[in-house]
């Protein structure tokens, strides 16, 4: 065992990459849940985004088009969820699960011609001087653009929810849809927009896996990341910056676990592999002293009775 082999700078740099797909999907779901809607279909939207992004990037040769297509793909799939829950007033938990099932199947149908292909590379940031700085360089200045975009989305979401009128309305809808409706806000319209945003973010997160983190297309390649993202939103008690923190904690534990193994630390691997989940539960218990709670109307069906 030799812990000095673990390079903390590289560890932080790679945990940021590992955290980005979860981060993107979770921040989208956060907005959805803040609007009072629980969409459990994150995994399905992610994998759909992964294949849409991959296919378009391969066909067009441009990773940028790929990411745009991924966002569109995720949003289009979430439109199904909109139809079910906002138009037909179906139960959100079941609709979300059905969406995941559907998305997994759809993505493998779409992806049949794309197994074994190599996508065009996404360039990394390379700023002269800054990227070469010790410590700060690898951590802050030499990632791919999407990683920074993820952080920007978190900041923007935070600002939107906290400082803008739109954010206030969104929260009002999530807390008490009847009151918001009485005040004349378009509850359904706001929720639809939130759901579409969530779908787009999940799609981006999926494409980050298929275009940058792995990069390749294989069926079922998101391997449960969508579920982690869902958990993360609750973990973050619906606060944007805590989503970032939580995503890094998750990514960090996964990467650290592998690092410890490679350094020869003799801890049973399966217990290391389960540590992120156990620690999340522990942190959650500690945080529960905090009074923040779920949006009051979360998961409730809204029907204007007027």
């Amino acid at each position, binding site marked *: 065992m030799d812990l000095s082999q673990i390079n903390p700078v590289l560890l932080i740099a790679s945990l940021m990459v590992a955290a980005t797909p979860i981060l993107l999907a979770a921040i989208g779901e956060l907005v959805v849940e803040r609007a009072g809607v629980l969409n459990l279909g994150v995994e399905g939207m992610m994998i759909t985004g992964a294949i849409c992004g991959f296919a378009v990037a391969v066909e067009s040769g441009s990773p940028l088009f790929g990411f745009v297509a991924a966002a569109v793909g995720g949003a289009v799939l979430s439109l199904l969820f909109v139809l079910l829950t906002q138009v037909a*007033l*179906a139960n959100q938990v*079941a609709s979300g699960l*059905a969406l995941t099932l559907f998305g*997994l199947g759809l993505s493998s149908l779409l992806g049949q011609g794309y197994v074994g292909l190599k996508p065009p590379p996404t360039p990394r940031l390379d700023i002269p001087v800054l990227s070469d700085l010790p410590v700060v360089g690898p951590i802050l200045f030499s990632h791919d653009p999407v990683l920074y975009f993820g952080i920007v989305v978190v900041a923007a979401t935070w600002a939107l929810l906290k400082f803008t009128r739109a954010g206030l309305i969104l929260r009002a809808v999530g807390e008490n849809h009847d009151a918001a409706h009485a005040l004349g806000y378009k509850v359904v319209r706001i929720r639809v927009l939130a759901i579409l945003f969530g779908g787009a973010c999940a799609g981006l997160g999926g494409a980050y896996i298929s275009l940058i983190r792995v990069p390749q297309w294989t069926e079922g390649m998101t391997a449960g990341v969508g579920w982690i993202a869902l958990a993360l939103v609750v973990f973050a008690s619906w606060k944007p910056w805590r989503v970032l923190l939580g995503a890094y904690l998750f990514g960090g534990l996964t990467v650290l676990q592998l690092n410890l193994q490679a350094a020869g630390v003799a801890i049973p691997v*399966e217990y290391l592999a389960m540590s992120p989940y*156990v620690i999340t539960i522990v942190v959650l218990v500690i945080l529960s002293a905090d009074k923040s709670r779920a949006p009051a109307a979360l998961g409730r069906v809204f029907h204007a009775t007027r």
Partner: protein
Amino acid sequence: MIVLEKRPQPSQFWSLATPIAAVVATMIFGGLLFAVLGKNPVEAIRTIFWDPLLGEFAFYYRPQLLIKGAPLVLIAIGLSLGFKAGIWNIGAEGQYIIGALTGAGVGLAFYPMESWIIFPLMVLAGALGGWAWAMIPALLKVKFGTNEILVSLMLVYVAEQLLASMSLGLLKNPEGFGFPGSRNLQQYDSAHNAELIAGSGMHWGVVAAMITVIFAYVLLNRHMLGFHIRLTGDAPRAARFAGVNPARLILFCLGISGALAGLAGLFEVAGPAGQISIDFNTGYGFTAIIVAFLGRLHPIGILLAGLLMALTYIGGEIAQSQMGLPAAAIQVFQGMLLFFLLALDVLTNFRIRLKTREVA
């Protein structure tokens, strides 16, 4: 403009008609999908829905419906009680795994002793295992107010790692030449959850599922506790005035759903699956959530929904091998069925009216 108008009472007619309409709609759209994939849609639909029930080899598939449907129904019934009361256990998959581990563990501890007592002990251990695993989110919720959705979901991943660890370590078959996986309980008579009548598909898990359906029906309709569960879900504040103890209700709902999921795991590992292995769990715990909602959280509805899901699985497999349909197409088809069932359900509770826009 189309407007939805809430019915004073859910429509009896539509609650029966919507599932049929949903299946018909799925057949149409699924048929289109199959046609796009270059397969004969009529044949595909017939293979999925007709062959398992009334086709040439239905004598084999009908019992299989019970085997595939029983764990789904067993778990979904347990979940539905909690869902009704607004208690969200979405970690049944984990409780299913732990029930299988504890149950099989007890059985294997006795190997190679033969005794009638072993199987009942395993059943008990399986139920207790699932119950204990569900008690973690329950107690954390009662004590600290921790969100049970998250904790129960996290524990699924923990259980999966435990399963891998057990199949590679403690429960590994010592005569298995180092390969992962436990002894096969099908070859250990005292621990084998065999078919009660050979070829009928009836094993103890199926019996347990049927008993549970009846038990849940009676509980919800004839018992005070069932009333409390429904009241808590519909009107939490009223429930408190009616003297419902929320902590006790949480412990009960999570406990019973955990125990039933654990039982399902035990019956599966001791019977149809036979052994603990790394990939023992196949998603019954998650599918059961869908089944619970498809069945509208009603025991009889869940029974039918479970059988319908089982039918699409089995029919889907036949369509795959007979017609070369990809597994993904079957998944999409199942997704469609769920969408239509959920979407058309709106007709049960709402009336659709055409209305001219009023001036506010």
